[in-house]
């Protein structure tokens, strides 16, 4: 196995994509989704990270920056550097942007400065993960409200790696009208980001959910993205068994841990099950495309 190393990051050879084809497919997908829904504009939450940065560039390429609204939604402890990175994307693209400080909403629930919020005194002590999940859901709620005022669809910014291992908040950051990069591993997101011209600082920095200062995805998960992406690619896309990927050089304990993460996150990738009771049930035996004649906003 040889790694295909670019200046800014490690791109495992087997994950390299034709970025020209990818941009064509994604642009057609974005235009198609909007047209079929009867919309001309799009809105997304811009965090300052590479995923939402790339999607902003892809949307701008597909429909023009003037039809894109980027919403920056920091909490009071969010990293100022992230915000600066997000602002740089907005400046370079020339798209519209809005800043919504979610602190009053979040503090309204968890409380602040020792004063309990709607969540009661217990919530004052809520750990970072609970806070992070609530923030992700609050951001979703804000984004969907902005989608009304901007008259645009909410574009998803989650990548394939985080979706597979479940490193997402259900009904939070994973919530959207459509997702142009959900089938790209983090390494492929980086490759495409370089190709389309996302600012280098954003590509170079360590990915983070920004739940606490200094947090990075990779230190938290205990493995690097190129390593994880390669494992997922061989296990899932290429249907290799556990023994086969171990024979390829992956650590068995890591393989088994990632397998459990993928299985444990299955429910996040599907609609909630409905008890089947009637003759015809949506998603079971009532099956229509998301958009059909009559389904576009008129």
């Amino acid at each position, binding site marked *: 196995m040889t790694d295909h190393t670019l200046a800014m990051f490690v791109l495992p050879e087997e994950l390299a994509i034709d970025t020209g084809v990818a941009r064509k497919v994604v642009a057609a997908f974005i235009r198609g989704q909007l047209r079929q829904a009867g919309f001309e504009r799009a809105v997304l939450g811009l965090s300052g990270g590479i995923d939402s940065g790339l999607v902003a560039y892809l949307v701008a390429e597909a429909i023009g920056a003037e039809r894109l609204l980027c919403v920056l939604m920091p909490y009071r402890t969010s990293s100022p550097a992230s915000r600066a990175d997000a602002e740089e994307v907005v400046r370079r693209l020339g798209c519209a942007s809005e800043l919504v400080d979610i602190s009053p909403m979040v503090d309204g629930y968890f409380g602040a400065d020792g004063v309990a919020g709607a969540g009661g005194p217990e919530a004052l002590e809520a750990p970072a993960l609970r806070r992070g999940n609530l923030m992700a859901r609050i951001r979703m709620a804000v984004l969907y409200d902005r989608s009304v005022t901007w008259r645009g669809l909410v574009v998803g910014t989650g990548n394939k790696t985080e979706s597979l291992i479940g490193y997402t908040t259900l009904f939070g950051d994973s919530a959207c009208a459509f997702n142009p990069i959900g089938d790209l591993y983090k390494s492929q997101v980086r490759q495409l980001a370089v190709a389309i011209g996302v600012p280098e600082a954003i590509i170079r920095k360590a990915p983070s959910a920004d739940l606490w200062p200094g947090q990075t995805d990779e230190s938290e998960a205990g493995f690097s993205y190129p390593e994880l992406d390669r494992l997922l690619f061989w296990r899932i896309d290429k249907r290799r068994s556990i023994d086969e990927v171990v024979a390829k050089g992956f650590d068995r304990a890591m393989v088994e841990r990632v397998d459990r993460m993928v299985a444990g996150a299955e429910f996040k990738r599907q609609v909630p*099950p409905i*008890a*089947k009771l*009637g*003759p015809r*049930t949506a998603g079971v035996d009532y099956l229509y495309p998301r958009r059909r004649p009559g389904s576009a906003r008129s």
Partner: protein
Amino acid sequence: MQPLRIALAQLAPRLGDLEANLARHGALLGEARAGGAGLVVFPELGLTGYLLQDLAAEVSMRLDDPRLASLAAETAVLSAVVSFVEESADHRLFIAAALLEDGELRHVHRKVHLPTYGLFDERRFFAPGDMLRAVPSRLGVGVGLAVCEDFWHLSTPQLLALDGAQILVNVSSSPGRDLAATNEVGLGTAASWRTLMRTYAQLTTSFVVFCNRVGVDESFSFWGGSEVIGPTGALVAGAPLFEEGLFYADVDLADVRRERITLPLLRDERPELVAREWRRLIAERAGLAADATAEAGAVDGFDVAADVQRAGGGRG
């Protein structure tokens, strides 16, 4: 009097958990033997669960799998029907039902009719079987195995009975639905199944043994209601809806002979005529013969004799 106690193992398999289900099958075999059963029937995909999707390839077994052999080893002086995902040498996956007897795997039926409509998507994950055969059993009668949807095609019970089956065994994973249908069981699916099993028992003058699972896979709740019907079409014993357990039915196999003397429908079958008409239909569908049912003006096609019609040329 040829008495036989049939045990209906109306269980709720754990989805994708082959080891747990194998253990449960083993335990129930022991329990049924202690209860005096001579035949134990488990539901469709009882060893794997039903809604497998891509898990199907992960729980599949070759017929020489030692886990199957271990299960078969628990059938000394006993007959059992179990169901699992079979992988063939060329890597097709089948929904299989196997007859285990006296420690051996005696016969495997691969589900022929894979429903792929409405809430079913079996053809996406499985290959259809190519055979319908009755098989002699240690019970002294022929056994015909079928899996769920196989019984929604009239030819299945008919062929199995003509091939020598006196007990037709259908193992199922039938999801409950259509609660609004007005009938005695309050469940459209169950009412349909009950109707057709009584019809098959009576028209093939055979025992029909139906074992349907219970429990929940995803959105589906399987309704159980396993039954044994006698060769007159009358219910011998039935298990409750939605409840897990081992349920017994005592039958007299001599009822088959009595009923076949009384109502000699199988004697009066016309295999040559039926096979000829199937060949005609196949040729017509392949465009090798004019359509004798005159698709456009169907009245003629249904009323006149076949040779007259063919002379007239049908629709051309």
